[in-house]
């Protein structure tokens, strides 16, 4: 299991026990939507297992059911058939072990940056963490590069900044598993790399399991232990590729290495057909 390099590395530095049971398991999961009385097959039965602390990227054209998978893992949507398991238990209600960063930022317009980010620590279920809230919020604001914007309202921020507020809000309470739906789509190229770097560092030190949806293949290869390429209409898995690039990765330079280029080319060949197909619909 070559993708275990990262897990081995983590085990070495953190003595984190590694179970063999998957964190997330999808067995024969399919999803149909009914649109205006018509049944649309959004996702054909797929199988996918995600190990604890694994970083898995889902790549594919739009409409291939990537977001649907995240919604089902989060417990916000039920599969039409098959089973979604989290820690070997069926997900039947909103899954509180995960932090979900949706495609659309769901910031509350009447709260400032700092208030939006800190909302999770105001909840009763984290009452014991309230004491360190101020420091942790300040720290995470610094981390996502929003220093000086603590007291701004979402309407006063750019799209990219709002994304970073949403990211900080999700990271702040250190959920066990992160679900991210194109989190960096609205960022400019340089800032995106900085964010990728931070995300890689944070998820590794906090032993997070990550399910990361993106349409940017380079981003996926840079971050992930495994890249799952999806085909569209109906959604299905085309190929799964383990990324053997050593960790920690230098997000700024890795894309210029030969190994990266090779993986990119292979996966792009897979993805290309799907993208072409998608564009003429």
């Amino acid at each position, binding site marked *: 299991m070559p993708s275990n390099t990262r897990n081995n590395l983590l085990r070495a530095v953190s003595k984190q026990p590694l179970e063999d049971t998957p964190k997330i398991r999808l067995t024969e999961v399919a999803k149909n939507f009914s649109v205006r009385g018509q049944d649309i097959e959004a996702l054909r039965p797929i199988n996918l297992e995600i190990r604890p602390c694994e970083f898995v990227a889902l790549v594919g054209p739009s409409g291939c059911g990537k977001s649907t998978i995240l919604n089902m893992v989060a417990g916000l949507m039920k599969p039409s058939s098959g089973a979604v398991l989290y820690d070997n238990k069926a997900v039947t209600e909103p899954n*509180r072990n995960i932090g979900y960063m949706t495609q659309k930022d769901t910031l509350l317009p009447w709260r400032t940056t700092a208030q939006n980010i800190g909302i999770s620590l105001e909840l009763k279920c984290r009452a014991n963490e309230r004491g360190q809230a101020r420091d942790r919020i300040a720290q995470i604001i610094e981390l996502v590069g929003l220093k000086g914007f603590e007291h701004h309202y979402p309407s006063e921020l750019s799209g990219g900044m709002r994304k970073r507020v949403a990211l900080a809000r999700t990271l702040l309470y250190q959920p066990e598993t992160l679900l991210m739906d194109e989190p960096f789509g609205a960022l400019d190229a340089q800032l995106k790399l900085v964010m990728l770097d931070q995300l890689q560092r944070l998820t590794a030190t906090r032993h997070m399991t990550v399910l990361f949806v993106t349409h940017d293949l380079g981003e996926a290869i840079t971050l992930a232990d495994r890249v799952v390429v999806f085909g569209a209409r109906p959604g299905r898995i085309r190929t799964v590729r383990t990324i053997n690039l050593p960790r920690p990765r230098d997000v700024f330079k890795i894309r210029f290495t030969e190994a990266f280029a090779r993986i990119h080319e292979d996966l792009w060949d897979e993805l290309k057909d799907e993208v072409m197909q998608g564009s003429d619909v």
Partner: protein
Amino acid sequence: MTASIRASTTSRSENGPRWRQKLLFTRAGRTTVRLAAVAAILLFWQLMPMDRSAKMWASDPAAIVATLWDWILDGSLWHHLGATLLVMSLGYVIGCAVGAALGLVFGFFPFFYRILAPYISAFYALPKIALAPLFIILLGVGVESKVALVALTVFFLVLNSTIEGARNVDPDSVEGLILMGSTRSEIVAKVLLPASMPWIFTGMRIAVRYAFTNTLLAELIAANSGLGYLIQYNSATFDSSGVYASILVLVVFSVTLTEILTRLEKHLGARHE
């Protein structure tokens, strides 16, 4: 020809002789013109030759001022003004409180709303003033029946806009908070309530005007006090000076109310930005 083109392209205030500029384009000048116009009309009204029956219908400014002065001296002006203000504000406060509270309940438990929706929209559509005679039968001609009518009018306005607000809460924000582990009451306090607030305020803002109009209409229909009653009473007793005097009071009252509201909205709006 060229001169007139040049004149029309230069700015407006450079046009015409100096005295006209001063009158039309300065604040003091405009006020002077305005007051002079009113004074001219009043003077004409006062001095116009009228026989006794014409005088009875049309009255004249001096008689109107005399009537007003009598009312101020015997305190009846304050009595009626106070009655109108009481009905309006009491009805408004009750209507807002109940409307917002029930609206939030309906918004958060859509089940109730789905059952009651047809009745609510039927009542919402009904011009509430049509119920004034009914309330007078039920509660008498006193202040109570008017308060009830105004409260009902305000209630439906605030209720509807509150429900609208509660239904427009972004479900994704709610889901996000659920995934963070929040309880039901935390969702109400942190998302549903603050998200509905602007809608509640919009309803309340619109309701002020309705409360005022309906107070007056209710007093016109049947009452024993209030500005509307004053107009109605003087008209019924063929006291045209009294009618004009009470309309004058009403004008001052509504201008003041509008001015206060505009300032308040500006102030709150600025703070919200």
